[in-house]
């Protein structure tokens, strides 16, 4: 493994951090530009394209009719998965889902699920017989850093604009999926010794641990995850949690501006 480049990059990032600078000129808590498009995919019942700096992801929602689990006869189900396929970047290889892609999908899934934004009872059609399964698939097409936040944004945006294809399922007229909240994720990466918001690909390559925070409408925590080697202190966490409170509210506003 060529580890020379990361090593030089680490030095550069540390030097920049000493002056409170970042490699692309942003401030410590600045995000890159974000463009969110919805209803952009034929055949998906809800869809979103997120262009987050040079990172590009698509999210699509599909529904299926299924029989409920025996222990939850009146509840539907929600599933969110992410694919980190070789299209996303030079470093990605074909093969079974990597731990990275599993973690990505599960962290995004927990943020949405645990916010309670989908009422599982509302997905019941006939108790014990037929319920709706909601499946969100996220496809990373260009990874230039911070795919977690881009994927979480695309997932909730696709969900919030999804139409249940009731006619196709012979269960009445099509209707918008009820989504009661807009959980969003805000991730921080230790670069040059201190945490920054929205690391780009170079900062990820030369950085350390990440913290992923998903907050709901009232600023409540719904999902946390630390990834990669490294530790953090409670004081550091308090600081980034404060930043996340502001930032997640802005992201939720962006999503809500897209609704039908």
């Amino acid at each position, binding site marked *: 493994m060529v580890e020379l480049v990361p090593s030089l990059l680490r030095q550069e990032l540390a030097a920049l951090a000493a002056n409170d600078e970042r490699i692309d000129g942003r401030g410590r808590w600045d995000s890159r530009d974000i463009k969110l498009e919805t209803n952009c*995919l034929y055949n*998906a019942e809800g869809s979103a394209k997120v262009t987050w700096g040079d990172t*590009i992801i698509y999210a699509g929602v599909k529904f*299926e009719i299924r029989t409920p689990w025996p222990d939850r006869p009146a509840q539907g189900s929600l599933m969110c998965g992410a694919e980190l396929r070789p*299209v996303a970047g*030079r470093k990605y290889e074909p093969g079974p889902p990597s731990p990275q892609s599993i973690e990505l999908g599960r962290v995004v899934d927990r943020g949405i699920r645990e916010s309670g934004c989908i009422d599982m009872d509302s997905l019941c059609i006939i108790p014990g017989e037929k319920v709706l399964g909601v*499946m969100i698939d996220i496809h990373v097409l260009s990874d230039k850093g911070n795919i977690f936040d881009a994927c979480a944004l695309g997932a909730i945006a696709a969900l919030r604009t999804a139409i249940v294809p009731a006619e196709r399922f012979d269960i009445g007229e099509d209707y918008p999926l009820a989504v009661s909240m807009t959980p969003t994720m805000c991730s921080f990466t230790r670069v040059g010794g201190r945490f920054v918001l929205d690391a780009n690909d170079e900062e990820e390559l030369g950085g350390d641990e990440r913290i992923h925070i998903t907050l709901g409408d009232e600023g409540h925590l719904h999902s946390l995850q630390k990834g990669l080697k490294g530790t953090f202190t409670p004081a550091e966490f308090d600081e980034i949690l404060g930043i996340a409170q502001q930032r997640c509210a802005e992201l939720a506003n962006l999503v809500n501006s897209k609704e039908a």
Partner: protein
Amino acid sequence: MGGYGDVKLLRDDGLRLDGRKVDEMREVKVEAGILPAADGSAWVKHGLNVAVCAVYGPMEAHPRKIQRQDRAVIDVRYNMAPFSTSDRIRPGYNRRSREISKVTAEALESVVLVERYPRSKIRVEIEILAAEAGTRCVGITAAAVALADAGIPMRDLIVGVASGKIEDTVVLDLDKAEDNYGQADLPMGILPTTGEIAFLQMDGDLSVEEYNTCMEYNLKAAREIHELMVDALKRRYNEKNGGEA
């Protein structure tokens, strides 16, 4: 081919259900260079199909056993996104996508100057984001543009096109209903400058005469799409160089 026969696909005025003439193709849009992480990329919308292609390389081929001493290998993955079809499809490759990946790779090897890059690998990632019949052809078109965008030298751009048969009539570029209820489909990868064929599949039922008509339609369509591909690459070139078309 479904070939059910009792579904009407041609209107009384001789046009198709979506108003196209028998030798008319769906609208095609091409963009080059849309994925910042890739060495070359393309986006093609063909009817309601959407394909995106990323090219990485040439890079060292590993594991070593896939290396060829005298040329580059072209490693193609054709993949349909889970949300690209009416019924969600499970992520991961299936037999269909593996076969399409194989014959697409072989078609691209036929035009890329692979002998210029011994022992190396060129990765071609074709992702179908929305499918409405004919995705393998759209993928080939996208791959050709993405390879060109990556600066990989080729004898010619390959164009993916298809004709087929509905209600005993040969038509160009089947859409979803025509594919589901039609009688034959003949997808090809054509080199528009020489008329050579680098990709060929076919299923259904065609007489030799019908085959010849399909071939004629395909060649015509390939030349039309080729112009759109060249335009997209010119726009991309000018954009990179800050100029105007």
